[in-house]
């Protein structure tokens, strides 16, 4: 952390138990280094990742959120990720209407074999969020609510 840019983004990653979490695990066992800015939250399935959870992350000071699960066709519960995908297709326009910064919400499919992809994804999100700076919009909202 340099003195000129002390900001380090806080990133919350909601990942599914069966693919992305194992992908993150693989990155670890392969000694692939990724930024420690990410807080991984493991859930049973992307189908479980409630819209409110993403908002909650912003409320609690996250600067970016990642939602990640199994590739289409790979869901442990057959169709959880398809349901999640459709839900997000509707949720995104709502968030856009509200003026939420969509550059801070990321979606990926990362399988249990893609440790490298997990590392690259987290690195990329950390870099872009660092460039964006803190999520002032939500931070101000939080300050006004304190």
């Amino acid at each position, binding site marked *: 952390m340099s003195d000129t840019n002390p900001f380090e983004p806080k990133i919350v990653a909601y990942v599914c138990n069966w693919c992305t979490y194992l992908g993150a695990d693989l990155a670890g066992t392969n000694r692939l280094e990724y930024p420690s800015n990410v807080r991984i939250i493991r859930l049973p399935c992307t189908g479980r990742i409630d819209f409110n959870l993403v908002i909650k992350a912003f409320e609690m000071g996250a600067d970016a959120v990642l939602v990640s699960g199994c590739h289409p066709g790979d869901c442990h519960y057959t169709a959880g990720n398809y349901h999640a995908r459709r839900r997000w297709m509707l949720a995104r326009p709502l968030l856009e*209407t509200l003026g939420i910064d969509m550059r801070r919400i990321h979606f990926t499919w990362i399988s249990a074999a893609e440790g490298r992809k997990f590392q690259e994804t987290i690195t990329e999100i950390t870099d872009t969020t660092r460039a964006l700076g803190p999520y002032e919009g939500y931070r101000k909202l939080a300050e006004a609510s304190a």
Partner: protein
Amino acid sequence: MEQELRDTCKRLLEEGAVDVIIGYGQSMPDGPVCPVFIKKAEDVGRLVWNRQCFGNLATYLTRKEIKALGKPAIVVKGCDERAVVVLEQESQIDRASVYVIGMACEGVGDPPASKCGYCDVHMPRFADAVIGEVANEPVSQDGRYAELDAFMKKTPEERFAYWTNELSRCVKCYACREVCPMCYCNRCIVDKNRPAVIDTSSTPMANFAWNMARAFHQAGRCVGCGECARVCPAGINLRLLNDSLAKAAEEGFGYRAGMDKDTPPVIGSYALQDEEEFIQ
């Protein structure tokens, strides 16, 4: 039309076909139009039909106090009927045990409510009895999302600032929820406190959380009756949020809630070929 409505309801009650009429009435002469629940044939004179019949009475079909009154007949406009269709789709009502009285409607409000400007359901389509006829043909639907499209021309920062200001007036009275025919959960997510998903205090941040959750729970279900915005004591334009979801459902999936009960609901079904360019 009003007399024909009263006659139909009188006959239904006298024949014992239904136990209660859910309709529009006035609590006092020249007073505002309010919902009335009529159980006796001699009381049908209390029913009214005029341009002040804004309310979407379908919301009462799922209330346990109203269910306790027996088999209902409900007075609906074309737009309200869409809510009845969604309730049937979601197995909240048994359509065979609800008598639907559809009113031909040329728009409510004076001047007409904005939703009436692009209404394409002036005539109820699935009602058991239809009363009246409409003179004008269904109008152009181009304006359906005009307000939303104009709003979306603002930058995200401007939109966020707009909602921060608008939602700061929300007092969390939950009138939007109470009036909504689609909000029939026995226990609303905002009333759950272990764990509390949504902060119940009326702070700017908690107001955002509540209004987002309320809107999103209507995704692909909102029929656009606009009652939430009409009853909001703070005058927040909640329809803008509902419209963003309705537009996404219509443009992405060609789906409009309550138009056809046999189309699978957009949330709760999926397709393998759903677009996923936003997912890396």
